[in-house]
C-alpha cells in the first residue's frame, strides 16, 4: 500500500503502541510513525511542529481512556490550535468500545471538525483501508 501520510499514535498502553506501530509499518511503506504514551506530551510536540517543517498530512490515532489527559481532553485542546496547523491533521479515535462508554460522549467527539472517525481496536487492514479512503 503506498500512501502519503504520516501517523501519530497516542495510547497509554505500551503494547497497543507497539502493535499499532508495527501494524502500520507492515501495511504501509515509507511513512513516519510517531508514538506517544502521554497525550499531553503529544499535544506539546504537535504545537511546536510548524507547518513548514511537516507538509505531509498526518493522521492521529487516538485512544480515549487514558490517565492524566484522556482522548476527550486531547481533542478539546487540539481544537484550540490555529487553523493552519489543524488543517494538516485528521484525528481517528482508536479505542475499545464498550457499553460503559457514554454514547453522548462518543457522539460529541464526532462533532469536532478535526475528528474523522472512530475505529474499534484492534486495527486491521480493512479498518485502515476504510480510514484512508475517508480521509
Amino acid at each position, binding site marked *: 500500500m503506498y500512501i502519503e501520510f504520516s501517523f501519530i499514535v497516542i495510547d497509554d498502553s505500551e*503494547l497497543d503502541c507497539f502493535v499499532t506501530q508495527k501494524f502500520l509499518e507492515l501495511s504501509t511503506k515509507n511513512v513516519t510513525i510517531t508514538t506517544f504514551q502521554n497525550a499531553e506530551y503529544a499535544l506539546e510536540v504537535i504545537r511546536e511542529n510548524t507547518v513548514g517543517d511537516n507538509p505531509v498530512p498526518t493522521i492521529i490515532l487516538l485512544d480515549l481512556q487514558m490517565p492524566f489527559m484522556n482522548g476527550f481532553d486531547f481533542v478539546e485542546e487540539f481544537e484550540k490550535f490555529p487553523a493552519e496547523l489543524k488543517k494538516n491533521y485528521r484525528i481517528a479515535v482508536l479505542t475499545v468500545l464498550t457499553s460503559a462508554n457514554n454514547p453522548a460522549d462518543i457522539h460529541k467527539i464526532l462533532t469536532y471538525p478535526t475528528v474523522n472517525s472512530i475505529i474499534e481496536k484492534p486495527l486491521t487492514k480493512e479498518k485502515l483501508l476504510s480510514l484512508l479512503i475517508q480521509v
Partner: protein
Amino acid sequence: MFSSVVSSSPAKSYYNYVINPIKLAEKVKVLYVDDEPDNLFGFKASLRSDYHIFTAETIPQALACLHDYPGISVIFCDQRMPGRTGVDFFEEIRVTYPLPVRIMLTAYTDAESIIDAINKGNIFRFVKKPWIEADIIGAIEEGNKFYLAVSMLSIKNIELQRAYDELNKFAYSVSHDIRGPLAGILGAINLANEIKDVDEMKEMLFLMKKSVKKMDAYVLSMHDYYNLQRGELKITKIDFKKLIGEFKSIYSVLSKVSGVRFDTNISQDGIFRSDYAPLRLIFNNLLSNAFKYQDRNSKNKSVEMIVEVAKSAATIYIKDTGIGILGSHIGEIFNLFFRSNSLEVGSGFGLYNVKSAIIKLNGTIEVQSILHQGTTFTITIPSI
C-alpha cells in the same frame, strides 16, 4: 505543600442515629412528653423495668432529649399542652427526626385535631387518656417494630446506593482495565502472523506478558477489595518487628535492583491488637507505591518506614523521595479508579483499598506531598 486527611469518623457519626442491629437486646428507648408531671411520673414508674423511658415537660425539653439521646424509637406526646400542641411538636420534628414513631396521647379529640395529627403530625397511633398499661405496651412494641423496619430499610438503601455507585465506576473501568489489555493482546496475536523478525517477536511477547501481568494484578486487587468490603476482623496481638521484617525481605530485592535505599525504624513497647490482613494490605500498597513512583533521574532515592507504638495507638510514617503528587490530585488519590500518573499505570484500586482498610481498623491517614521531592503518608491506627 498540600495535604489531605481521611478519617473514619464521618462514617461513625453517620451511624449514630440509626439502630445497630447487633445491639437489639438493649431496652427500647421511649420518650414521653406531657405538661403534667404526675402523668410523666406514673408512666415512668410503670414502664421503666421494660423500657428505657425519657420524659419531658415541655417541647424544648423534648427536643433537647431527642438531640442528646439518639436512638429513641417511640415518642408519646400529649395533645393539649400550654403553648404548642402535640401536633405542632410532631410536625416540627418531622424533618429533623423522621425515624422515631409518633403516638398521640389524648383525652379529648375532635375530628379536626385527628385529621391534623394524621396529616401534619404523621402519627402512628392514638392512645386514649387515661391510658391502660396494655395499650401503651402494645403501642411501644408495634411502634418499635415499625421503627426498626424503617431504620433497617434506610441503612440498606444507603448501602445499596453505595454498591450501585461503585458498580457504575466498576463497569466504566472494566473497559479500560480488562477489555483494553485483551484488545491489545488480540491485536498482537493478529500481528504475530505478519512478523518475521524473531527479536521483534520477542519484544512483542515481552509487552504481552506485561499486559497479562497488569491484568492479573488488577484481578488480585479486586479480590482484596471484596475481602475488605465483606470480611470480619480477626483481632490478634501484632508484632510490628515481625510484620515489617516480612516487608524488609520482600522489598530488599527491589531495593537493590532499583537503587532505592530502604530504611525501617520500629519502636514498640506495649501490646497492640489489630488484624494482620488489613495492616499487610495497607503497608504493601503504600510501600509498593513508594518504590514505584520514584524519580528516575534522582540520585538519592530512598523509602523510609517508621513505626511508633505508644499508648495503645500505632503511628506509621511511610516517606519516599519520589515524584510527588500534583496538588490538584491530592484530594482524589483515595478515590476508586483514580490515577494520578501516566508513567506507571496502576489499577486505580490501590489507595482506595488502603483507605477502606484504614477505615475498617478505625484509623486515619494523612498525606503530605511536594512535587518532585517526595510524599509522606502518616497513618494512625488504634489498638482494638
